[in-house]
């Protein structure tokens, strides 16, 4: 892209809540899709119960909520490809990368913390 690069900000969205008990994750995802249209350098970190948003096999039909795990799978179509998952959060929930619906980068908390420090903006959800 020949566009001016200077307006591109590094923005990290941090998902820290389980997907269906509150609306944080869903609204966060909506915000990501909107921001993706502005061609920013977007990344998403899944921390704590936030990792449950990516869990395979979610069927929300019975609770009358639209499932959005699949929307995370569509993010690479919007050039949102930096998905980081906290290794400790996965491990303490008995999950592995194979339990997740998308390809992610599993990193240590310290590595994610360093990436946070490199951002122009960190947005908690």
């Amino acid at each position, binding site marked *: 892209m020949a566009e001016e690069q200077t307006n591109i900000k590094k923005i990290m969205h941090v998902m*820290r809540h389980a997907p269906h008990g509150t609306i944080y994750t869903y609204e966060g995802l909506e915000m990501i899709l909107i921001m993706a249209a502005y061609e920013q350098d977007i990344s998403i970190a899944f*921390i*704590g119960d936030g990792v449950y948003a990516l869990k395979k096999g979610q069927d929300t039909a019975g609770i009358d909520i639209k499932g959005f795990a699949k929307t995370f799978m569509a993010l690479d179509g919007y050039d949102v490809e930096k998905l980081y998952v*906290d290794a*400790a*959060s996965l491990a303490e929930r008995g999950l592995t990368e194979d339990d997740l619906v998308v390809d992610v980068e599993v990193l240590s908390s310290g590595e994610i*913390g360093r990436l*946070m*420090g490199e951002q122009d903006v960190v947005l*908690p959800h």
Partner: protein
Amino acid sequence: MLYTINTSPFENSTMETALRFIQPGDPVLFLEDGVYAVQAGNRFSETISSLLDKNPVYALTPDLEARGIGSVTDGVSGVDYGGFVDLVEEHQPNSWL
């Protein structure tokens, strides 16, 4: 970056999670119910003391006062709203809501 924590560590694990990610030198500000973390002699005093080895720790004074917290873990600094603004001005916030 400025880590802000606004919930009690007795209520949820947000503080413990946040502190896994923090980098040396990053300041931490406790506010609202987060200030219960820095009350002297509680279950988290050792955590706060070791955090202080590498990170400055602040608590919002009006929130301490509102909760009757007169004594805080050694090394924790109280800040007023002006001090809060100064911290936000100097550091990119990383809010652990």
